[in-house]
């Protein structure tokens, strides 16, 4: 509990059986159980992001969040040294100034402290990180009795690292998934949440969902039994609702019945308004999208999003505001169902065009790697060299995210035309426009909500 005391040395991890027994004795539900009961109660489970470097402060943070906001699941957000396996850097910063860490270095702190955290609160914990190779972290998490683990061989590689080959991350995550399979056989279903949020900014729904499907299929093959597919709120209501509703449809089409699938929404993950009132409008909006789209879980934001990692109070306030979306008094809201149905059809069509050829290949992992190399699979704004980022998303005049450039995605002519049509009226498509104009247009699309709220695009103080 005392950060200035020497850190526990690398210690032998308990066996899977011991960890499963530990979870059973913990006396709290697993993440999978919480998700299942939220779904059957038709409410959206809420989860904050939270992670600080110091163990003592992490305890306090979790306890305070639970006491004041009663989230359904709590996060251990891991620092970005740990996610890149720079454990020595994490240790160095931890010893020098834990407040400089942007997350909790679980591997460095060790699983005994993980159990301490787990025992401190009654909500189950999830590890949120961004590791292309999360094996050490996963083992520490299981030993800590933590029942939900985010990531995947694609979604925790391309947005998070520069040069890790996909083959490597896919293999590492295959191992994590297989460990989950083993745990499931021993009686512990770990919720494996896939990070369909990707690079978060202007992600076309069909890209997010296609990656979700590929990782889910891979996970299911290794014995994973509970999959959460996450989608980042894009900002266009009917498109976002359709994307969430696509998740059960995709699960039915691509996954065995034995796998439980949940839809997770990330409240808007792009440029956030700076004014508190505007940020709160956006937070509530995101929560309503989750509710009306039928998401099982919502990952919340705070009014400090534009500024930096929020303080506890802001995190609590974000959760409480989002929980208004679970109000029993919103039955009066009806939606433009025709428009949603149309978006849903398009999304399912695009996802099929992207994933069907990949799933038809004999070796899924090899095919994923070579499809990314060739651009048949792609994500916008890749942090990694191993995706081409030839696809360019833009917003249509109504705010929907469309493909401005489809790169080498194996899209039908019909899909391509529909996307072009959506953007044509935006003037975004003027083929003659120079790079400068394109960057200007993209920037405006990224700053979408600033425009909605009439905030200037000036960046927050560094």
């Amino acid at each position, binding site marked *: 509990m005392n950060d200035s005391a020497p850190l526990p040395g690398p210690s032998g991890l308990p066996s899977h059986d011991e960890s499963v027994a530990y979870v059973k004795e913990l006396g709290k539900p697993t993440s999978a159980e919480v998700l299942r009961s939220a779904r059957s109660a038709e409410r959206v489970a809420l989860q904050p992001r939270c992670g600080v470097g110091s163990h003592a402060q992490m305890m306090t943070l979790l306890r305070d969040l639970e006491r004041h906001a009663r989230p359904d699941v709590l996060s251990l957000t891991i620092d970005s040294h740990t996610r890149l396996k720079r454990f020595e*850097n994490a240790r160095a*910063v931890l010893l020098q100034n834990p407040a400089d860490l942007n997350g909790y270095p679980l591997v460095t702190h060790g699983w005994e402290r993980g159990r301490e955290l787990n025992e401190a609160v009654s909500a189950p914990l999830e590890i949120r990180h961004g590791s292309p190779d999360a094996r050490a972290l996963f083992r520490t998490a299981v030993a800590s009795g933590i029942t939900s683990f985010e990531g995947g061989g694609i979604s925790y590689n391309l947005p*998070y690292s520069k040069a890790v080959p996909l083959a490597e991350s896919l293999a590492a995550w295959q191992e994590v998934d297989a460990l989950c399979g083993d745990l499931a056989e021993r009686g512990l279903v770990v919720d494996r949440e896939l990070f369909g949020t990707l690079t978060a900014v202007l992600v076309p729904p069909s890209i997010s969902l296609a990656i979700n499907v590929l990782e889910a299929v891979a996970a299911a093959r290794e014995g994973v039994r509970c999959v959460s597919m996450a989608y980042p709120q894009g900002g266009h209501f009917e498109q976002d609702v359709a994307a969430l509703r696509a998740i059960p449809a995709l699960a039915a089409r691509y996954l065995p019945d034995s796998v439980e699938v949940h839809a997770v929404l990330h409240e808007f993950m792009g440029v956030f308004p700076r004014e508190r009132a505007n940020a709160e409008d956006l937070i509530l909006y995101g929560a309503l999208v989750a509710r009306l789209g039928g998401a099982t879980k919502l990952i919340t934001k705070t009014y400090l999003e534009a500024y930096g990692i*929020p303080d506890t109070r802001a995190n609590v306030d974000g959760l409480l505001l989002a929980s208004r979306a679970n109000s029993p008094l919103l039955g009066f809201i009806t939606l433009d169902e025709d428009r949603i149905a149309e978006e849903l059809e398009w999304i399912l069509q695009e996802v099929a065009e992207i994933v069907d050829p990949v799933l038809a290949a004999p070796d899924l992992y090899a095919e994923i790697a070579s499809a990314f190399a060739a651009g048949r699979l792609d994500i916008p704004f890749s*942090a990694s060299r191993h995706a081409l980022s030839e696809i360019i998303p833009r917003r249509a005049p109504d705010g929907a995210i469309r493909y401005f450039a489809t790169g080498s995605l194996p899209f039908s002519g019909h899909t391509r035309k529909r996307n072009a049509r959506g953007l044509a009226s935006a003037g975004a498509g003027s083929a003659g426009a120079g790079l400068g104009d394109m*960057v200007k247009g993209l920037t405006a699309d990224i700053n979408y909500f600033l425009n909605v709220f009439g905030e200037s695009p000036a960046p927050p*103080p*560094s």
Partner: protein
Amino acid sequence: MHESETRTVILGVAASDSHVVANHLIAHALRAKGFHVVNLGTCTTVDEFAEAHAEYPWAEAVLVGSLNGHAYEDLQDLPAARARGLLGCPVVLGGNLSVGSRKDASHLDRLRALGVDVILSDPALLPATLDELRGSRSSGPVPVSSTAA
């Protein structure tokens, strides 16, 4: 010192940091203005920046983005590199430079103490800043703490 017709800059995101959207946009924008941008992308260590500078010694500046709050830790090796005579050009830093939502000025001071020459928040100011740096460079040493942040 080699002076090519097109002006060159080295761009990248700090070592522990994978936030890349601004990096893409800045690269595009500077290219649209005619710069040759050597973009090292995300997760770039000080050593990698130094190697790139050794390869493009005529580069006017190294532009580092850092969003995840780890700027200080990620630039720990900058004084050592400078001591070894590397990275002799101005280092310009921008982004979200410390962990947390309430920033005080001290975190900028410690970055300057590491050898960061310019701290900028708005990337739109980069071209003007680069012009100014070039001007002051031809007339004297690198300014140590000009800042628009």
